[in-house]
């Protein structure tokens, strides 16, 4: 009898592991040019390889997907998308796309660095793009974002709009990529109000993938900070950000979105009422531009920087909550672009 109970416990545990591994919903994986699009089919196949987590996060990966969809409708390319489940998938998926006739392949996320180095070397005729990382090869475009600059602006916006002088930052995994968001945000807030209090917390250590989908955890932290007097919280943690927005709805305070304009992507009026702005990281532009360059025959690699100067990062104005401070923010933006303000990359 005890043995049976044990067997049951084991199977439940094993199943819950699988459940944890397969979070996130999928839309179709192949987006062909819509029938109504005016772009003629170019006959070009473009591949997009997502990291674990993949589509459906409402921010980072969905932004990349949007770039692919835009390429499908405007350039008439056929988009093939593959999502990684485990470590080995990254290289395997890049190879599958290469073998399936893709002329341009974008890897979404810096974990593709090593696999792409290898696959790009083996496929010199294919143009590659990598988001958030650098692969030093003649046929790889490295698509980097000055997330710290965009975060500086939303930090300044938070400081301008805060009535309590107390704001917060919730990060996903405590890795360099996210620390850049924190550094810019804090610097921007202190630039406007040197006395402002900025609470900082991360949802998990480096390597803890649950940090990107920990809605409950983000909500708990945010609710605590809101109760303690914070009135604006910026969350750079992928899908976890939904928790901050929920807490903001309940507390009647502000939340700041990340990567995509979450005012638009959420579409929920209750959420829209509390999304002050979003730090927009135009992964969609990077993906689209890379595919477009390939379609136009420009397959040279190199580092492509997306920052404030080319609107590769920025802040969203949907909702109109920032209308009263927009002039000040644009002045700060101009100063950053002109190099008058130096934005740190490390907290």
């Amino acid at each position, binding site marked *: 009898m005890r043995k*049976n109970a*044990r*067997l*049951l*416990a*084991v*199977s439940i*545990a*094993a*199943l819950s*592991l*699988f*459940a944890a*591994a*397969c979070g996130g919903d*999928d839309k*179709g*994986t*192949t987006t062909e040019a819509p029938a109504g699009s005016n772009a003629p089919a170019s006959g070009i196949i473009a591949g997009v390889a997502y990291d674990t987590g993949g589509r459906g996060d409402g921010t980072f990966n969905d932004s990349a997907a949007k770039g692919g969809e835009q390429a499908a409708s405007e350039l008439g390319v056929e988009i*093939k*998308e*593959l*999502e990684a*489940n*485990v*470590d*080995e*998938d990254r290289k*395997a*998926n890049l190879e*599958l796309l290469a073998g*399936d006739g893709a002329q341009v392949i974008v890897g979404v996320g*810096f*974990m593709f*660095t*090593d696999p792409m180095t*290898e696959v790009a070397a083996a496929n010199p005729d294919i143009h590659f793009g990598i988001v*958030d*990382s*650098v*692969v*030093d090869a003649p046929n790889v475009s490295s698509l980097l974002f000055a997330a710290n600059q965009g975060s500086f602006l939303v930090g300044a916006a938070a400081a301008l709009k805060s009535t309590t002088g107390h704001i917060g930052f919730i990060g996903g*995994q*405590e*890795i*360099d*990529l996210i620390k850049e968001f924190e550094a810019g945000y804090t610097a921007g807030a202190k630039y406007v109000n040197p006395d402002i209090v900025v609470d900082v917390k991360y949802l998990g*250590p*480096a*390597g*803890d*993938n649950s940090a990107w989908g920990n809605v409950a955890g983000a909500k708990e932290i945010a609710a605590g900070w809101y109760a303690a007097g914070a009135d604006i919280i910026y969350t750079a943690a992928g899908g976890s950000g939904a928790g901050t927005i929920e807490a903001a709805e309940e507390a009647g305070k502000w939340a700041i979105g990340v990567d995509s304009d979450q005012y638009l992507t959420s579409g929920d009026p209750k959420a829209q009422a509390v999304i002050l702005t979003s730090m927009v990281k135009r992964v969609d532009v990077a993906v689209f531009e890379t595919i477009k360059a390939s379609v136009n025959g420009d397959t040279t690699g190199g580092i492509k920087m997306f920052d404030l100067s080319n609107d590769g990062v920025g802040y969203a104005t949907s909702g109109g909550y920032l209308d009263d401070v927009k002039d000040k923010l644009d002045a700060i933006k101009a100063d950053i672009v002109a190099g008058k303000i130096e934005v740190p990359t490390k907290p």
Partner: protein
Amino acid sequence: MKNQRLQRMLVTSASSLLAVFVALCICAVILLITGKDPIEAYKTLFGAAGDTKVLQGALNRATPLMISASAVAIGFKMNLFNIGVEGQMRVSLLATAVAGAAIHLPAPIHVLFCLVVAMATGALWAAFAGWLKVKRGVNEVISTIMLNFVALSLVAWAFDAFFRVDSATGSLLVKTKELPSSAWFPDIVDRRLNGMFFVAVLVLVLFYVLVWKTKFGFQLRASGANPGASRVTGVNPKRMIMISMLLSGALAGLVGMRSLLGDVHAYQNNLAEQQGFNGIAVALLGRNHPLGIFISALLFGYLGEASGRLQLIDIPKEITTIMTGIIVLAVVIINEAVKRWDDRRIQHKAALALEAVAVAA
């Protein structure tokens, strides 16, 4: 006697096969409901077997699964559920990456040194859970889950604070110092199939010999099946718990070595992630037997390798994840059902034999 064991084995393998078949049927229904063509899906899934690259990839993916399933299975033999293989693997990954990069040795000895460090650190981390169980009676399921979180955080902190080396290109992918090439585990097929595959097979063979062919193995199985009775025969269950936990941890330490010594050659975050957890399902499907583990690791490795092709024909990757989940669930249910049927069959046979004896008398 021999005949009966063979029968048992046949029944067990038949029920596992049945489970896989049932799972495929259920998945076909799921595919139909979501508007996909199951025949096309299975054609793609199993058609991929014609590609040697896919087979090499499947063996490569099966390598860590075989080792982690053995780590889980050796615990099961003692009625211990070591769910902490993932954490033990993480600790040993960082320790081995650091220790291996710190010294210089001739090639085969350097690799051996790394494997020993990996096993020692994995065993050390598992020893905590064993010690808690033996001394304080803490359920190992709870302690190993908790120790997984501790390991993840501790390793992330130690890596970030002491051992990270920023990349020359300013890439966000930071690693530890690269292992000298003398510590690299050679490939069988260049960058496709690593030699750790042989180590994994060796682990399975040793696992078999240890558990089924030695006195210790007999004591372990006896102690796991009935701690009270075996205590009477002079086997100390606490000692057995500690030893099997240490063995399990040592194997857990080896799980990540294909990724570390055979692929990346440095520690980085997310290296070999989930390989410790996935071993649990493989051990379950393989019925904690080396041969079963070998076959189910190959199956899981193959499903993983072929799932990308399904995505290319517009079938979400979750289908293979669901399939593996359903296979495991089906195995548990069908095995239980078959076991009951088999028990009844044997009882019936015994009853008939008894009756015959009674009639003769």
